[in-house]
């Protein structure tokens, strides 16, 4: 009986953690899909080499505060990013900042 309960418990734990990790993976993919739109001006994975600042590998906190400044119209130099950042929640902007911070620089 104890063995059966233990087995059951182990199975439930395994399934739960697998489910949680699958959720995490799903959320990670969601961020990757959101981030893919940024490539059109900043290069694939943010590794652009053009006039626009390369964003890959920059510190997440700096990227996040910049994105939030764009969103809340507090960035004097904005041209289009103010218009774009407003289309994302603060959580999404943080996830995008983390995503690009984790991309290797060119």
């Amino acid at each position: 009986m104890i063995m059966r309960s233990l087995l059951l418990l182990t199975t439930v734990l395994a399934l739960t953690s697998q489910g949680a990790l699958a959720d995490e993976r799903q959320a990670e993919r969601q961020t990757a899909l959101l981030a893919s739109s940024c490539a059109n001006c900043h290069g694939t994975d943010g590794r652009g080499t053009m006039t626009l600042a390369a964003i890959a590998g920059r510190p997440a906190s700096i990227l996040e505060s910049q994105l939030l400044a764009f969103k809340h119209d507090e960035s004097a130099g904005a041209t289009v990013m103010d218009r774009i950042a407003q289309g994302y929640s603060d959580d999404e902007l943080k996830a995008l900042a983390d995503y690009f911070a984790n991309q290797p620089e060119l």
Partner: protein
Amino acid sequence: MTRSTTASLSASRRTLLKGLGAGALLPLIGCGPPGSGNDASGPRVVVVGGGFGGATAAKYLKRFWPNLQVTLIEPNKVFHTCPFSNLVLAGERRMESIAHSYDELKNHYGVQVIHARADDIDPDGHRVTLDNGDRLTYDRLVLSPGIDIRWDAIEGYDRAAAEHAPHAWMAGDQTQLLRRQLEGMPDDGVFILSAPADPFRCPPGPYERASLIAHYFTQHKPRAKVLILDAKDNFSKQGLFTSAWQELYGDRIEWVGLSGDGAVMRVDAERREVETEFGSIHKASVLNVVPPQKAGLIADRAGVTDASGWVPVNPNTFESTQVKDIYVVGDATVAAPMPKSGFVANTQAKVAAAAIVSSLEGTPLLEARWANTCYSLINPEYGISVAHVYNVQNDQISIASGGLSPGQAPGTTRRLEAEYAYSWYNAIAQDTWGS
């Protein structure tokens, strides 16, 4: 759980996830380039069309799921973009600078690229027939067919007429033909551009073209004029365009809208004459007819177009609402309020690629989101833009944010937006074709 915590999922967690067996079910998304995937053995996705939509779809399918077998069908070995073709017309760029190959897709992403034309689709048999007679089967099909001209829409404007009065609305030979005509134009000539009613490829395109050709005239044909005859009363970024025209070109550019008798009904291409709705005849030195359009022919063959000539899609996935397992992206789709732009085709392709991966592995659909920024150059150092983010609300594509460049802005802002336009072009070309 918040997305922010998962975005920093470490490499060791990824390994753990795979170790638990979930990795086999959930292929990596957003991971680094997969290298050669020629040994891929997963489900087969065929992509028809190698423009902004199709090339992006092929690349991101492989990025999202390296083991997919992805085949791209595109007749041309080199693709010329419509974006920046107006700079070629103005003599500011060469054709080579808007030409892109499929080397990155083949060599880096392991996409099988077949240079042939897709002639027919059998949706029931999941088969594509090529003009060389080959047949390909698919698990999922992506069509990025672009536009075809409605040759029956304006009296007298057929394929032969386009050799005298180019449309230049698909970049390539037509672009070069129009450029040669502009170079040969008399110094006091009139360039007439006939613009169509909505919807059509690149809503601000005709007005950027008029602007850059006016710029060319200021340099090389000082007494030449630009006349835009328009089949509508309102156009994209109208206020920004008209005030910039006033500022930079004075009365060199004249625009006549629908209610001013601007709709061209008949074209005599050899005489370079047009007749408008109420019978006015205008004679041009160089005549550029941007005609009404519809989805590219292969969309008809696949049975995905509706009575409008365009392709209705499920906004969450960009799968055809009419034919299962066929996803359609780019100018061919009905996706208003998104414009028919290369930028939009690229982001639609990413959403479709993610939806295809979800459908093949049976995982929940990701939330769709798209962005668009359309830059227009009034001259090579004066840029304006419209930018939006789109999402799905109540099963409709909706605007989440965005708008136009400010109406009143210092010259530095316009210069900066022009710089960003060049930077955007390099970035999206890199993201789409790798060059």
